[in-house]
């Protein structure tokens, strides 16, 4: 699906040892950049994408021809101001936008790797993306940022590389995937794996793909990204292009039609196996467990300045779980700011035009950049 657009990528030659025990080497990591790296190379921000994101955070995504997933936040004069900062965003390994993933063609069989792809973790994703610092010869990033799974990568990045970023912005995320999070992901995976076209993950990626299963997975997940109030206000019990119920199973209600549409457009841009691998990586994410049940230990060597944001109506990664990260940081005297933004837009808030959220990030980054330079921290 991404074969016809020229994308930037690096080839990671050295073997990368994965958490599952396997090693991968000579693999591609696709990325995109916005803005310019300054002479001092102190204005770089590495942005991590969420489950279904990719490297095209801003502008028009050349593959889908739609706006980048974080177009509200990344661009000239925006929250991550590309007139000031050099924004780098990579497609995670396991993804399907040019980075090494289950959709990558195996040169031996000339078929997609499929489920022969190794199970990867958030840690593996972050370790692969770290190579971008070498590529750009950046000694230290100004910031790492991301929402949802992107936020998990932010946390993992700081714990793996304690002094490689001055600022960290984990947004609407968690340090440990909850039973509810795992449950929803499992629902999505089961939908994909029950699709007759999935074929144990060895579908050819051309004619017959597990599109139905992937669409259902997306529909289920999409509900978790919205709030009950948001859904009720947007759709209520409104009917879809009809004046009365039809006593059948077509999409009578607007919400049904909306979800069906979300499912159908998703399969055009996303690979079902990638969905399995990435949700698995999220489920395996438990930074607290990585540090023997003490989350503070993950950050004890870091001087990174944290700014954590949650949303009132986000029930997928609720404020309490974001606050656990704040508490862990305060317990070791780390530099941390935290705010819960009031919005009805649910977990999706971090991707949407929520002015309070965007302006606070913008001002925080701009002021902090100046402060750090003045004080030469």
């Amino acid at each position, binding site marked *: 699906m991404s074969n016809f657009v020229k994308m930037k990528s690096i080839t990671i030659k050295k073997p990368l040892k994965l958490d599952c025990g396997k090693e991968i080497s000579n693999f591609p990591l696709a990325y995109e950049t916005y803005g310019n790296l300054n002479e001092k190379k102190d204005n770089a921000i590495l942005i991590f994408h969420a489950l279904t994101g990719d490297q095209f955070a801003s502008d028009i995504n050349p593959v889908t021809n739609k706006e980048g997933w974080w177009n509200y936040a990344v661009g000239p004069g925006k929250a991550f101001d590309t007139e000031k900062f050099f924004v780098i965003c990579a497609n995670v390994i396991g993804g399907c936008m040019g980075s090494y993933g289950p959709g990558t063609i195996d040169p031996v069989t000339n078929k997609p790797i499929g489920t022969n792809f190794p199970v990867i973790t958030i840690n593996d994703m972050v370790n692969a993306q770290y190579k971008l610092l070498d590529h750009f010869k950046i000694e230290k990033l100004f910031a790492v940022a991301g929402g949802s799974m992107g936020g998990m990568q932010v946390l993992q990045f700081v714990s793996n590389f304690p002094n490689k970023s001055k600022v960290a912005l984990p947004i609407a995320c968690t340090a440990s995937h909850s039973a509810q999070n795992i449950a929803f992901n499992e629902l999505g995976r089961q939908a994909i794996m029950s699709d007759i076209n999935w074929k144990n993950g060895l579908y050819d990626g051309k004619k017959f793909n597990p599109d139905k299963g992937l669409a259902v997975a997306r529909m289920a997940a999409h509900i978790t990204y919205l709030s009950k109030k948001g859904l009720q206000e947007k759709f209520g019990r409104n009917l879809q292009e009809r004046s009365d119920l039809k006593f059948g199973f077509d999409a009578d209600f607007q919400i049904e039609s909306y979800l069906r549409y979300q499912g159908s457009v998703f399969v055009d841009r996303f690979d079902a196996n990638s969905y399995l691998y990435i949700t698995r990586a999220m489920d395996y994410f438990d930074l607290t467990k990585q540090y023997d049940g003490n989350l503070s230990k993950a950050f004890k060597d870091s001087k990174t*300045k944290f*700014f954590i944001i949650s949303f009132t109506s986000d029930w997928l990664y609720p404020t309490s779980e974001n606050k656990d990260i*704040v*508490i862990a940081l*305060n*317990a*070791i*005297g780390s*530099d*941390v*700011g*935290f*705010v*819960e*933004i*009031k919005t009805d837009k649910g977990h999706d808030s971090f991707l949407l035009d929520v002015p*309070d959220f965007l*302006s*606070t990030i913008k*001002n*925080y980054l701009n*002021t*902090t950049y*100046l*402060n750090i330079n003045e004080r030469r921290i």
Partner: protein
Amino acid sequence: MKEEFKVISELVDEKSRVLDVGCGDGILMEYLSKNKVVDVRGLEISKEKVKKCLSNGLSVVEGDAEHDLKQFPDLSFDYVILSQTLQAFMSPENVIKDLLRVGKKVIVTIPNFGHWKVRVDLLFKGEMPITKNLPYEWYNTPNLHMCTIQDFYNFCNSKGISIFKTISLNGKKTSKITSSNLKFKNLISELGIFLLEK
């Protein structure tokens, strides 16, 4: 800048770690970090104010002192500051205990309910006093536990809290409060500023 903040910042040693509880817009935090080069953090309950602080690059955590002070380890700050907020808590006694646990030293400022204008209002008007520092009506005031400088002084003594310094603020005038002039200062001070230690 408020006179009160100047007095507070004079009590803070340079290069110390400070937690401003109920930091509001972060004006004191900013003043401290610009003039004293201290490592300063804030805790604030109002979302609007937290956003303002963060927009200015200040490390402020949204939270309520009555619940969220718990997350700070013992003696993790050189100073913990509580400016004109004590009276708004459900349990001022517990908050003071927590402040003294978290901070090596604690600076508390009290809007003085013993000021003569307050007393005169109540005595002659027979109505709950409204002043510059206490601008609310009785039915909408967030101030649940008003006290006088003398009350707080007595409280500290009865709880075994050491008072290092007590400063009276009246307009722009500051003066020392001692056990011998306490009754008089309690009459003329708008604000009492206390430097405490466990």
